[in-house]
């Protein structure tokens, strides 16, 4: 298999070089199709969807990750409604990079139940990269990336936005205020400063059932409420941006972000649910034990310098992530009986530094080079143990070359070389006799240090044919550095009694990926067919073992192991604009995974699904706008599962929303969105929900209202 891919790569290089027509020098080409909700772009190494910011406000889910799920190829991995992370073509967590001002977001993403720390209102432009984005964003980004940009510059001297949101299901309520001011400066220097503050709260999560079956027992849910699942989010973003017409430094942007979230955890998520624990305490908005507090802060600096005819980019970022998990001590012997409720305290500091320069070479080939450096330092504390403290450093160099010499056909090639090292601290957990530590200890992690090197390469081309046919194809080798949990986790993770175990024998993950897009545009619509094939020599995943944990409350051991895996799939997307006031689209997405040793699928792979949006809209003059949207999703049964993973039956869900906007000047407007989700009140299970193993259904019919005032 490996040899076949290398041969294919070689064959493509030769054939494409021979097959070029000689066409006068042109700028590099971006294949672009503008749909109703997003603009599909295939530029160089990326095929991406640039999402319309208006869509985000119209389709808003509980979290940013949920909001994106109506897009083809995008899903969300949920823990109820308050915690979610984006899934692109079945990849999530560290395999999907979230890029903010050129700096990769680094938090506690190693846990499936750890949500993405982001203010869903603080998004100017959002681009979703599907497929490997390894060369520029790091080897980890083999599934894709989310590129989030600041709010755009105001049209006038300043702009303000006041947002309010309220929902009935879990009484989500919140507001967000944004203001930015353009500064008047001499010598043509332009600058702006701005800030956004957001606060969101939810009560306990409600599902359209009054009981659930877990293990061999059926437990009641009073009024369908999942006790202790309230959430609270506080976000602050502050930034300043400067642009200089002359001199070496041409632009500078400084951003500070703070994301503070507190989430209750359904008692069944940590330990066996009992009648008492699922009955709750009657207060739907408080936080009992167990719960999670997550504080993520970052300071980012982006600068651009002019050097001759070229530009040099520099991005520096510092991030600090504090995750605190609180629960009743429930590991007799491992904690003193008088222990407090701090079960896990995880602190991660990350420093990143990126430097890049573009060059124009002979014959209009564009060379893009970059250096990247990252240092992570982590400390842990608490009564329980999952991962040890560690230090990790990575340094990488990448270079990409793009042929800008052709009109209809251009090709590109890039390589990335990365060197990294990790030093893991050992951890010995003492045994307690009531409150006194005994002489015996249990070794949970041994000190470990390792240095490795990896490389990635991609080759691709775009072709624009007659009658608006466009093709984009990228073939590449990718790698991924194992995460700390894959190296060294050794403890019981929430959501099950699984004892998860890392392995210091793991090698860097490597694989070969091929992505292709065929697009066709016509007068009032377009079609896009995407296919992807990936073969990984040593894909890392959690696999069940044939023995139990030696921890008293631990169940089966799930160990990280490496196996050859084939990952294939595709998306078909049709967008049609039959009338001036009607837009319709349809998406079909499918992913097939195969672990070659057992022939089984991988865990948490989204089912085959069909998605469709119907939007009708009218306007009166330039002032009044109305829109009505119906969004439908049909998911097929997910029967291709990993060992011990539950199959999930298919479902149909329909959402509807109505939007009205009034604009009284270029910058001043007000809009209202009334959204009814799960209109058909379907009782369904989400295969990607961490509540799925507990047989907990998703939300029933719920209504959400949003108001946005811009001036």
């Amino acid at each position, binding site marked *: 298999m490996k040899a076949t891919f290398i041969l294919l790569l070689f064959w*493509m290089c030769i054939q494409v070089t021979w*097959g070029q027509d000689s066409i006068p020098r042109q700028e590099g080409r971006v294949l672009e199709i503008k749909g109703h909700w997003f603009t599909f772009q295939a530029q160089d190494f990326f095929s991406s969807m640039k999402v319309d910011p208006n869509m985000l406000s119209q389709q808003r889910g509980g979290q940013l990750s949920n909001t994106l799920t109506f897009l083809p190829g995008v899903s969300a991995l949920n823990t109820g409604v308050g915690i979610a992370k984006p899934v692109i073509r079945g990849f999530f967590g560290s395999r999907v990079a979230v890029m903010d001002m050129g700096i990769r977001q680094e938090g506690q993403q190693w846990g499936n139940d750890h949500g993405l720390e982001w203010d869903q209102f603080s998004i100017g432009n959002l681009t979703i990269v599907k497929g490997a984005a390894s060369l520029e964003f790091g080897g980890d980004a083999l599934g894709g990336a989310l590129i989030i940009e600041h709010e755009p510059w105001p049209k006038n001297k300043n702009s303000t936005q006041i947002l309010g949101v309220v929902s009935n299901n879990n009484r989500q309520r919140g507001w967000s205020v944004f203001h930015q001011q353009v500064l008047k400066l001499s010598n043509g220097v332009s600058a702006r400063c701005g800030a956004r503050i957001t606060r969101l709260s939810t009560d306990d999560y409600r599902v359209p059932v009054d009981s659930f079956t877990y*293990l061999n027992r059926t437990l009641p849910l009073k009024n369908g409420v999942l006790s202790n699942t309230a959430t609270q989010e506080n976000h602050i973003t502050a930034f300043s941006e400067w642009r200089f017409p002359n001199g070496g430094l041409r632009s500078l942007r400084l951003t500070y972000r703070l994301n503070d979230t507190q989430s209750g955890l359904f008692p069944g998520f940590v330990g066996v649910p009992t009648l008492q624990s699922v009955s709750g305490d009657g207060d739907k908005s408080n936080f009992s034990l167990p719960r999670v507090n997550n504080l993520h802060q970052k300071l980012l600096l982006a600068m651009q310098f002019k050097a001759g005819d070229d530009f040099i980019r520099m991005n520096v970022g510092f991030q600090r992530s504090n995750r605190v998990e609180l629960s009743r001590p429930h590991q007799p012997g491992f904690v003193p009986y008088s222990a407090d409720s701090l079960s896990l305290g995880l602190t991660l500091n990350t420093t990143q530094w990126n430097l890049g320069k573009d060059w124009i070479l002979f014959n209009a080939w564009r060379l893009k080079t970059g250096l990247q450096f990252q240092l992570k330092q982590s400390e842990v504390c608490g009564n329980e143990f999952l991962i040890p403290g560690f230090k990790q450093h990575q340094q990488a160099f990448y270079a990409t070359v793009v042929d800008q010499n052709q009109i209809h056909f251009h090709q590109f090639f890039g390589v990335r070389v990365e060197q990294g090292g990790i030093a893991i601290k050992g951890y010995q957990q003492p045994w307690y006799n009531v409150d006194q530590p005994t002489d015996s200890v249990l070794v949970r992690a041994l000190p470990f240090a390792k240095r490795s090197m990896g490389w990635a390469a991609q080759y691709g081309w775009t072709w624009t044919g007659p009658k608006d046919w466009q093709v984009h194809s990228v073939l590449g080798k990718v790698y991924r550095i194992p995460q700390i949990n894959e190296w060294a986790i050794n403890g019981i993770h929430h959501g099950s*009694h699984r004892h998860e175990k890392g392995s210091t024998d793991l090698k860097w993950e490597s694989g070969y990926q091929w992505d292709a897009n065929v697009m066709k545009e016509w007068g009032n619509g377009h079609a896009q067919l995407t296919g992807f094939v990936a073969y990984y020599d040593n894909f890392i995943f959690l696999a069940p073992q044939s023995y139990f944990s030696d921890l008293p409350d631990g169940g089966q051991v799930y160990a990280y192991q490496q196996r050859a895996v084939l990952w294939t799939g595709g998306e078909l997307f049709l967008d049609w604009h039959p009338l001036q006031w009607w837009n319709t689209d349809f998406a079909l997405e499918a992913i097939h995974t195969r672990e*070659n040793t057992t022939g089984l699928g991988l865990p948490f792979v989204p089912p085959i699904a069909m998605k469709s949006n119907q939007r009708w809209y009218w306007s009166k003059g330039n002032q009044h706008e109305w829109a009505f949207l119906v969004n439908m999703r049909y998911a097929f049964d997910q029967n291709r599962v990993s*060992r011990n993973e539950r199959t999930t039956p298919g479902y149909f869900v329909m959402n509807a929303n109505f939007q009205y906007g009034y604009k009284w000047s270029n910058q001043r407007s007000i809009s209202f969105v009334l959204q009814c989700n799960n209109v058909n009140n379907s009782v369904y299970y989400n295969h990607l929900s961490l509540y799925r193993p507990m047989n907990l259904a998703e939300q029933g019919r719920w209504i959400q209202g949003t108001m946005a005032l811009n001036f």
Partner: protein
Amino acid sequence: MKISKKMHWFVMGMMVLTIFSCKPEEVQDVERPVINSVMVNSVQQETHELTAGNSFVVQVGLTDNEDLSQLKINVHSADDGHGHVDLPGYEGLENVGLWSYSRVFDLSGTASSPTSTIAIPDTITGVWHLEIMAIDKAGNESDEKVYNLVVLP
């Protein structure tokens, strides 16, 4: 250009061939072991009433289509820190004292019926959970079974 287009279709064809030429491996055992019976003092029911300071016998009957690997018996408090358990028939009963038990049995073959005698401390009362789990050699996990142990003075 023509060569490039040919190359494109050639590559696509090769990829499709590559995918479908993967040797279909035989899917391993995916059948879960089954816990057929859990008897406490020879009685099979959801809730068992026991006396502090006594012992009780747990006998588990289980089967697998290929080869069993391990069985785990675990006892832990059912009070979740609330101090009392709303178990029907025992409402308001408070958990007093500390007790936990864990034992793993190594198994083999397609059927087994391991037995364990468990001593109850004389200092406890309340409701505890008896949790039974089994795994086979391929890593398939049985559906867990959980029973209530009501310990009275």
